[in-house]
């Protein structure tokens, strides 16, 4: 948890500085930051500074706090998180290749089997979820969902 707090504070501080730097390019060359209050860079510049400043305060607070003062996490199913992240990334990639219907069916089926659910329940869930989404979005709402090599 402490490592996550430190890493996030660093990332947020870097993000804030990057935003402020990019925003500073938007002000007119003749104006100083304080004069350019009406320009497109003024608002995001100070927001970037605020994010960087607040994240730095958080970083310092985390570093000076005793390690045991930061709440630890209990036992977690990290494997399930990994499976979900991998499955989502593969799913987003697979939709372009196989089309929405087949990719969604395989995503739901594969994820449930990987999460140790019974095969019959997994197959049934995959069919119901895919069928419902297809009927609601493709047929009722006429959304042109991505199609695969089979035309669906």
């Amino acid at each position, binding site marked *: 948890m402490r490592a996550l707090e430190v890493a996030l504070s660093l990332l947020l501080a870097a993000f804030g500085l990057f935003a402020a730097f*990019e*925003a500073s390019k938007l002000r007119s060359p003749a104006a100083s930051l304080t*004069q350019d209050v009406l320009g497109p860079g003024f608002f995001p510049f100070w927001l970037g500074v605020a*994010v960087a400043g607040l994240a730095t305060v958080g970083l310092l607070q985390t570093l000076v706090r005793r390690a045991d003062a930061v709440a630890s996490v209990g036992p977690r*199913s990290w494997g399930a998180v990994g499976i979900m992240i991998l499955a989502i990334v593969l799913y987003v990639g697979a939709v372009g290749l196989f089309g*929405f219907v087949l990719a969604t069916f395989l995503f739901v089926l594969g994820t449930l089997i990987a*999460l140790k659910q019974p095969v019959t329940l997994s197959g049934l869930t995959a069919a119901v*979820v895919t069928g419902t989404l297809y009927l609601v979005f493709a047929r009722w709402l006429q959304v*042109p*969902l991505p199609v695969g090599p089979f035309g669906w």
Partner: protein
Amino acid sequence: MDPLSGLLLGFQVALTPQRLMFALLGAFVGTLIGALPGIGPVTAIAILVPVAFNLDATDAMIMMAGIYYGSMYGGSITSILLNVPGESASVMTCLDGHQLARQGRAGAALGIAAIGSFIAGTLSVVGLMFLAPVMVKVALGFGPPEYFAVMLFGLVTLAGLGGSSLRKALIMAAIGLLLGTVGIDPIVGVTRFTFGQSFLWDGVGFLPVTMGLFAVAEVLLSAEELYRYQAVRVRLRLKELLPSWADLVTSKGAILRGTVIGFVVGVLPGAGATIASFLAYALERRLSKNPERFGRGAIEGVAAPESANNSAVAGAFVPLLTLGVPGSGATAVMLGVILMFGLRPGPLLFETNPDFVWGLIASMYVGNLMLLVMNLPGVPVFASLMRIPYPVLMPAIIAFSFVGTFALNNNMADVLTMLVFGLIGYLLRKADYPPATLVLALVLGPMVEKALRQSLVMSQGDFSIFVTRPIAAALIGLTAVSLLAPLIIGALSQRPQPEPALTAEESRD
């Protein structure tokens, strides 16, 4: 238009078979999703936005208001039966509701929650109906400095009240505002933070961000605790769902006080259902002749927070409709939807689209009644949802979020945005950064910046315009108080106490 004429118009709009169906559908689906453990109103509304977006604006908002109400009630089902609050506004319901369930009185707790929600929901819509036109008159005198001040107040209040750390909430607010600046600058027309990508010219869509931060992140967080939500078999019979006459008599004061507290707190930008339910519960405990019953199955301990959180829903519509300033994550998503329809919430909306506004208000009366009629006999059905193993829900939520986000513009860029914000949201939520503040800031961002820059154009760059106009100055003052109060209270609470005269529990009261 006076409130009664407005309501008459509203009923003409709302009482068509099609709109009654959308109100019923919203209340039903909202309860269904709200009854799933760990899924709150914001997620429920967010994943159904794409469906709403394919409808007419009035139909869509009627359905979304039904989802909002329904999911609030659905959250109480999991709180009472499983001791798992669907979202933060249901936390207080767990305390006594689950105790009642353990004593074999789950039906009475669910029944009083439904009746309290109905009474509070209906009375608070009356409040909305009469207060909204007054607010509209006040808001007509607002210029850019007042709008900037009221939006800042809403953001800071939400940041101050919403999470465990003010600093983290302020970071989320600032990032939301920053994301709101992506795209073409509304005043001088240059592109900002687009990095040559044309899909960013229109800005970062609030829907992919919301779906990522709530739906995808929620699934990943739930995956961590995959086996926490055990499938539960709950048997409830209809006659067990009706609270006794004694329960009703005991709860009537709690319901009425909860209604008032909920409405008043809901009206404040940035506060909302969670604070309302906490305050209502604390008040009932303080007023009770037997406060020791609270936490051990007091029926008022269910009636008060449930009434308050439902009443806050109608209260939150007052700033949303009259000022265009949402008071919570759920109303922020709704504001996003209203803007996507090309409507501009604010005082002029009552003039330009009275059928929309009054149709929505009238549908809330209808929706509340539907919720009561549907929920009392429907609770056994909703409770049976808890028999679905949680892993089964996870890929289904992802698939729904995928197709919903894709349907927005029929492109994969939105889906990728959702994916990225899902992963970011997972990490942020693990570290207790509140995502609702980011969503609210993202929706308000362009309006905040526009109001700020218009104000500075009016004053030729002089920031004193925000303290020389009375309403703006008062709102800026309130913002400063909201910002400083937690810091001062925090500093004072860390000072050593001379005598430990109170227990921790008493001092919280």
